[in-house]
């Protein structure tokens, strides 16, 4: 027992073995800056950081690699130049771009991917590429004083998408248009109104009828005010009694709840300024857009006797602003680096970790084992094979006969794209039209079929109930094809592995977490 504990106290801190691993940091924001610092300080010196954003003033309370004079400049670029100023010998690269422009070829270069992102879409994208390139990914997120770090080792532990994520809340159209009951309903309405009048002017906007009505107005501010807050209202709503005629536009106060006169003046001020401006989609940092939404939402709240909110709070809700502070980000990033080192050094089992605001059972930072992959996960559970071939010369027919039939022993495969469209089907019972289309596809090259590099094709062989996912990347120099990734276990194999791994399972000394499959990458601690 004694030996076990001593061995567990492994040398995370002073081991130089894996220091030159290439690390990808996705995001140079609050967590990203902290992450870059901590990686550098544990001796990791080969880092690529990618971020599409530029620096905003409100970043400066936590994104400490940036200074006021950097506002407006690309985050990735400034982060790298600040790091190099401090440590000239670092091999850090900054890329200002959207991560979704990068495919397998790019991801393959890295030993580990660390997410410091602020949105679900990008996280999903990175997850898929990490699954297809089998690169471990460690995600982190914070909100105020709460934080979370999760480790995802493709096909060994749950991927980021194994557990469904809550989708953003949406509201029924009628609630927004005619029966609001909460401040958020008024704010959503005001944002739609902004987009219809001064923003994207999308014809599908639920308030696009109001935009048409407003087209004929000569005094836009006043006529719009009367239309929205006096005339165009359901019966049970209360009309705003003030007269707009003598109201002069002026900005509304950020902190205080205003009077109806003040909101009317704010409305006039915003409309007067917005009407002469080029249409621009809603942006939380756009003062005029916020003035408009603040005035319009509060006037509407008065119509429906709903609680009013000050501009500071309205901006938070309208802009989906997540409160953020350096301390939580620093802690989350520290945990991310700790778990990354466990993977890189192939010792100690990485954990998923949560930072809470209040301790439970004396623990304020809690860790738990990584759950196994979900058998039904669309992203990671279906068996997948990676293939490299030349999109310009390789035809769909080659794919079916050479790879699916010869290599993978499928008899009559059906090929689906991720969007659900069918590329190819064979066998009996097809109608003439389909048969003709598939025959045509069969002769076309992947390029002619307009398939993108890194495309995923789901191949089903119904007769054997066998499904495999092909991840196909383009390689100009490939004369035939090359299978680069081996077949990953399908659901059946998963179960088997699970049982084998159960034998290796060990108890964690201080945790009451449920026991999970032991990581393959983790060697037994006695070794």
């Amino acid at each position: 027992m004694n030996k076990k504990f001593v061995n567990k106290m492994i040398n995370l801190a002073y081991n130089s073995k894996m220091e030159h691993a290439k690390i990808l940091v996705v995001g140079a924001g609050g967590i990203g800056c902290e992450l870059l610092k901590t990686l550098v300080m544990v001796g990791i010196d080969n880092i690529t950081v990618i971020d599409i954003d530029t620096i905003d003033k409100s970043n400066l309370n936590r994104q400490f690699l940036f200074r006021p004079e950097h506002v407006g400049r690309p985050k990735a670029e400034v982060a790298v130049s600040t790091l190099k100023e401090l440590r000239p010998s670092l091999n850090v690269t900054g890329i200002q771009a959207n991560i979704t422009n990068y495919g397998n070829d790019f991801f393959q270069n890295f030993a580990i991917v660390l997410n410091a992102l602020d949105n679900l879409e990008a996280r999903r994208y990175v997850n898929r590429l990490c699954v297809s390139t089998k690169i471990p990914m460690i995600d982190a997120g914070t909100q105020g004083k709460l934080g979370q770090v999760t480790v995802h080792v493709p096909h060994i532990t749950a991927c980021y998408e194994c557990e469904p994520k809550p989708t953003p809340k949406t509201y029924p159209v009628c609630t927004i248009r005619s029966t609001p009951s909460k401040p958020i309903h008024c704010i959503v309405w005001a944002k739609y109104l902004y987009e219809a009048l001064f923003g994207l002017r999308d014809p599908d906007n639920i308030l696009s009828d109001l935009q048409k009505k407003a087209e004929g107005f000569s005094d836009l501010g006043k006529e719009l005010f009367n239309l929205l807050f006096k005339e165009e209202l359901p019966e049970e709503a209360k009309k705003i009694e003030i007269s707009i005629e003598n109201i002069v536009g002026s900005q509304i106060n950020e902190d205080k709840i205003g009077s109806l006169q003040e909101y009317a003046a704010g409305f006039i001020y915003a409309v007067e300024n917005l009407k002469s401006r080029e249409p621009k989609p809603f942006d939380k940092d756009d003062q005029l857009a916020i003035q408009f939404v603040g005035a319009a939402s509060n006037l509407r709240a008065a119509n429906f006797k709903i609680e009013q909110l000050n501009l500071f709070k309205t901006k938070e809700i309208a802009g989906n602003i997540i409160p953020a502070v350096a301390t939580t980000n620093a802690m989350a990033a520290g945990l991310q680096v700790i778990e990354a080192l466990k993977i890189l050094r192939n010792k100690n089992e990485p954990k998923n970790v949560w930072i809470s605001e209040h301790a439970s059972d004396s623990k304020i930072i809690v860790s738990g084992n990584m759950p196994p992959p979900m058998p039904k996960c669309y992203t990671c559970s279906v068996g997948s094979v990676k293939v490299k071939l030349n999109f310009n010369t390789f035809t769909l027919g080659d794919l079916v006969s050479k790879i699916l039939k010869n290599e993978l022993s499928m008899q009559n495969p059906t090929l689906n794209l991720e969007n659900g469209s069918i590329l190819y089907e064979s066998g009996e019972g097809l109608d003439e039209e389909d048969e003709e289309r598939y025959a045509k596809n069969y002769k076309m090259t992947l390029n002619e079929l307009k398939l993108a590099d890194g495309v995923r094709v789901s191949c089903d062989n119904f007769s054997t109930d066998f499904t495999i996912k092909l991840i196909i990347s383009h390689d100009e120099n490939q004369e035939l094809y090359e299978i680069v990734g081996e077949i990953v276990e399908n659901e059946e194999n998963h179960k088997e592995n699970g049982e084998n791994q159960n034998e290796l399972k060990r108890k964690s000394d201080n945790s009451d977490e449920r026991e999970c499959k032991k990581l393959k990458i983790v060697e037994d601690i006695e070794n």
Partner: protein
Amino acid sequence: MAELSIEERQIYDRQIRIWGMEAQSKLRSAKILVINFNGTTSEIAKNCVLSGMSLDILDDKIIEQPDLNNFYLRNEDVGLSRGEAGAKRIQEINCLVKVSQTKNADGNYQVVVFSGDTANCADINRSCREKHIPSYYVFNSREAVLVIADLIHPSGEISYLSLPEIIEKIPSFLQTKKKKPNLRFYAFLLALYCKFQSLPLENAPPTFIDDQVLKPLSEQIFFSFTQEFYPSLSIAAGMVTQDIVKLITNEKAAYQLFFFDANDSVGMIESFSTQSKAKTSLLADIEISEID
């Protein structure tokens, strides 16, 4: 209290949404004393400055190569004192606050922060208590880090344990049976106790955990004392700064002891009662089942 400027509101926007406008103006008038500018206190200093607090740094040690295991010090700072270079570098992070080097710590401080060896801790604590200033002590041993807070109230009315009093409580705490003790936390406390009392580990007081289990862990901690591991110290620095913000904005501090170990990624908090032994021993009735 003077209202925040537009500049301050824009820069601090995301954290004002956590603690409010009034708290932010209290932070503006706060001043922290940082003693010993090592990796840990440099992170605390950075966090404090980002939150909007001003600080003084007391450290006249001349920078040598090993001191560069500190993100904010650079090669070209070698030869300067850690206090001087540290103040300059931390100041660059936020121009809305004031960061200075101090030679005699004569400012009006709300909180004092120290990290390093145990040698001067008792003296630092004594001077802080004389002035009723809460103080934080952060002890590193590679992956493991322990924070002790002396939360003395500025009015002096509410009684809080001093640093030596907390240390004195360690042996009885380690004898109080617990169902699932965090072994590394216990081992750290034992090592720290020996450091403080200048005891060799062989003469460490008995604990309720098998010596065979605890002593080797304590030994590792003992011999790696003051060695910093950046990810762990970042976590301790975050916890310390969050509690400093609470103290300054009149919220109740969260803990007296905080312990984190990177091996299992668990962070514990604990508070020792100001009461005498009788009360804590009630906990001893709980049977321990198995330690592993």
